[in-house]
């Protein structure tokens, strides 16, 4: 047990180091996000991630948002297990034909008003996989999409910025 505490003490809080450019940028975006989430979502933005056919690259980067470097929960953003608890769907693609019905159902199960962010080049337009007998292409071919973040895959910082931009857009519209 002592070793655990010792290790934790030695590592310290890596989340708040801002000596690195990336961390500083992330911190800044995060603070803006926290302010917006505070105003619009009562302090807590719940995201349901849906893999609708991805290669798993995007999923790894979404997971990275939860590591101690990014720790996205401190800005009020957290990932939930059920679409019924979600304000936002984060959908990776391309939408495979075999996931089409499941994606529609997940969308229907998410309460209004809801936001949909399509992630990755594949989520944007089908990417390397395009449209075929097995792929419906981009997410917007199946459900309404509010924002798109390109990249293969987008970095955690780019993803954070996209979440912020989408909320900002919704704020302007409202």
């Amino acid at each position, binding site marked *: 047990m002592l070793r655990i505490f010792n290790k934790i003490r030695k590592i310290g809080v890596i989340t708040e180091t801002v000596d690195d450019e990336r961390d500083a940028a992330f911190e800044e975006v995060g603070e803006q996000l926290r302010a917006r989430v505070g105003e619009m979502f009562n302090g807590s933005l719940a995201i349901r991630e849906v893999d609708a056919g991805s290669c798993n690259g*995007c999923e790894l980067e979404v997971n*990275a948002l939860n590591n101690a*470097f990014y720790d996205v929960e401190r800005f009020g953003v957290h990932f939930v297990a059920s679409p019924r608890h979600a304000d936002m769907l984060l959908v990776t693609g391309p939408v495979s034909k075999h996931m089409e019905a*499941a994606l529609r159902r997940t969308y229907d199960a998410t309460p209004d008003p809801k936001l949909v962010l399509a992630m990755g080049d594949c989520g944007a337009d089908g990417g390397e996989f395009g449209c*075929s007998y097995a792929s419906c292409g981009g997410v917007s071919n199946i459900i309404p999409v509010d924002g798109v973040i390109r990249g293969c895959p987008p970095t955690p910082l780019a993803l954070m910025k996209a979440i912020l931009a989408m909320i900002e857009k919704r704020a302007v519209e409202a």
Partner: protein
Amino acid sequence: MSAYAWLPEFLERLKADNVLLEDESVGVAAGITMLLLEAEDWGRAAAQAQKYGLRWTGGWADEIGEEIIVNACLVHHSDLLLLRARLPLGSPVLPSHTPYYPGADRMERHTQDMYGVVFSDHPDPRRWARHHAWGENEYPLRRDFPIAGTRHYPMRTDDNYRFLQTQGAGVYEIPVGPVHAGIIEPGHFRFQAVGEQVLNLEQRLGYVHKGIEKIAMGRDAQGVARLAARVSGDSTVAHTWAACMAMEQAAGIEVPERANWLRAIMCERERIANHLGDIGAICNDVAFAFANYQFSRLRESWQRVSQQVFGHRFMMDCVVPGGVAHDEGVGYLEQLRVGLEPLRHEMHELMPILDDNSSLEDRLATTGFLSAEIAARFGSTGYVGKASGQDIDARRDRRYSPYDRLDVRVPVFTDGDVEARMHVRSEEILVSLDLLEQLLRDIPEGPIRTEWRAPQEGAEGIGVVDGWRGEILTYVRFDAAGRVRRFFPRDPSWFTWPALEQLIHGNIVPDFPVCNKSVNGSYSGHDL
């Protein structure tokens, strides 16, 4: 044992079992020994191969002219052997390998759905790759099937798949997925349970089938490499390497030494990144959050260096046909080298904490036990095989460049439980760090790419690469225009997904997530 020294004896056994083998039946395809068999001998050849101790490592079909070509790849003493049968397009029927090699089950059903090949004595001829995106009598990989498909209306769910039924007092079913509760890939699991005990688990995959084999047809080598990089995003380096190895073999292209060393450097980095993430995630599934935070921290730092040096956090598209995309230069390599010792130090600090934690041991030891016998029957490689006594590693066994110059230590355990699968990962991280040390020290100078030359019509290639999940086997064949006509990347997950169905028996439902994570099969790599 020298290369193929066992083959004459094996051929004698086949002949003794009345498998028709003429002189011209034994040939070479894709650079390996190939036996051309009569369809009726297909099953008996597998029976003899299984008795003789060959491992079944992949099966796929191809369409050439008015024939369907069925291939099965086996391996013995690290020598590959290709079995091939030519069937008429109108009635492609042949016996199944599944009765002798249960690991062949899903790949044969995949071939059945994609090419319309009938495996006459297959014990379970239900559809596998096919949900509702195409019809029962349509075969997407055949030439006459349009790439855009035939069904353009909204798809319904895969609702009439016939699952195994269980009856009895107190037996209940738990359907899970395709959309899972975590940030992971989609698939369906059907549990039958009594109380907390799992009686049976049946997987239903294919949800992320995105037509990779079909859209590869007609692409040039560079296009297929980009596709290979996205077969399974977490194994992007290993899959691209295997695809390029196959294409380079078909084209007779010699890759510069330095390029192979850079490929190996990236592949070892990929192994370390994924193993780090997995160790943390396994611990997280039994609520040991400390380990998750520590190992995801190490993973993130590791990926940031990959970004700085290779321009991509996963090193995607860095391996290209003929070599690698860009040279890293001396300064960058130094940057990679200085990261090795700190990680080794962290591993030596963290693993004893995990090993001495009694609550962690309570949850991981004996959980999800996979016997060596079952692992061998399915042909499981990677950490799943290595944790259950399967001493298989293509880097050491196949000695492809640059591993012919390196001494690859392969950690093998016999406990077969979640803890052993975690320990294979931690040991492999240390091995990879040693390998990286040597690779970065001894990397030769020189060019990093040979110009790509398209091969002649019909040229075939097979690439075998040991990725972090296990052995990847990739087959390619080129057409007259120098474009790829057939691309089949066989992810190691084909042989570990069915192992998960076995190792969960007798475990409690709440231990499924940690068992699943310890296997960490690729959905995308398997569904294609």
